[in-house]
């Protein structure tokens, strides 16, 4: 039996690869998903719109903006990942999902705090995977960042 706690999802946003626990992931929504764009100015600058997930209004956030990934090449038709949040689910659009991988294939390296710009940076470690360095985050860290705006 597959243990979700041992699995990580690998995905890319603006050329940067992220890894997050599958246990935090609620759904992967495909291309063509209807996203409701907020009317007028969003109350939260990182929010791009919203979608309905299991009859729940789910906010769609801009992960590239949160991490200040300025490449600007995010695919507007990429898949949507829905994650569990503290109060309600939240979603991000990604360029592509590389796959779901057993945690044993990653080498996790905590980063020293002096590297970070401030204490609110929503990741604290990286993961080595197939010669690449991935940003390792969890749903809780990123959910807190959305609420800070």
């Amino acid at each position, binding site marked *: 039996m597959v243990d979700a706690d041992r699995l990580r999802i690998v995905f890319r946003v603006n050329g*940067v690869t992220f890894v997050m626990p599958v246990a935090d992931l609620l759904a992967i929504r495909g291309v063509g998903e209807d996203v409701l764009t907020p009317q007028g100015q969003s109350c939260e600058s990182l929010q791009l719109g919203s979608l309905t997930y299991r009859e729940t209004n789910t906010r769609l956030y801009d992960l590239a903006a949160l*991490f*200040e*990934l*300025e490449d600007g090449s995010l695919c507007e038709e990429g898949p949507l990942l829905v994650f569990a949040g503290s109060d309600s689910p939240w979603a991000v659009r990604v360029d592509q999902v590389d796959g779901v991988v057993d945690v044993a294939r990653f*080498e996790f*390296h905590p*980063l*020293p705090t*002096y*590297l*970070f*710009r401030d204490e609110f*940076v*929503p*990741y604290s470690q*990286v993961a*080595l995977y197939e*010669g*690449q*360095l991935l*940003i390792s985050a969890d749903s809780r860290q990123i959910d807190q960042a959305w609420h800070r705006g």
Partner: protein
Amino acid sequence: MMRLILFETLAVPCSISLDKVLHVLTSPQLFILPLLRPSFVGAVVYQGQVIPMLAGNASEKGEGTVNRQPAFCLICEAEFGSVAIPADKIVRITEAGEVSSKIMSGCDSRDETCEIDDRDYRLLDLNQVLDDSDFTVCG
């Protein structure tokens, strides 16, 4: 006797005490990491460890040069841990006694330089990295 490794980063002549250099990597793969202090641009992987890489200069972030892959990087030892210094060219290593200890003794300023071969080489003091949030290799 103090010996220096002389190198260039972004066309700026720089130097660091050879005692601090653990390894020189050729064609290192720089992984950009987001939301770092201005002093850092990302990290390299060295012997299975993730080593933070210093920014070449203050404009390396946000001006399209963050993906620049340096020709070399110097894996160096600092009080706070290992750090990678990007270098475009390794010039040479000074001979023992070529650089006087008198010159080096004053090396506690970010703008300290040392004249070698009629060029002014910036002397890097890695201990300033944590004290000066704007510290970069080129100053």
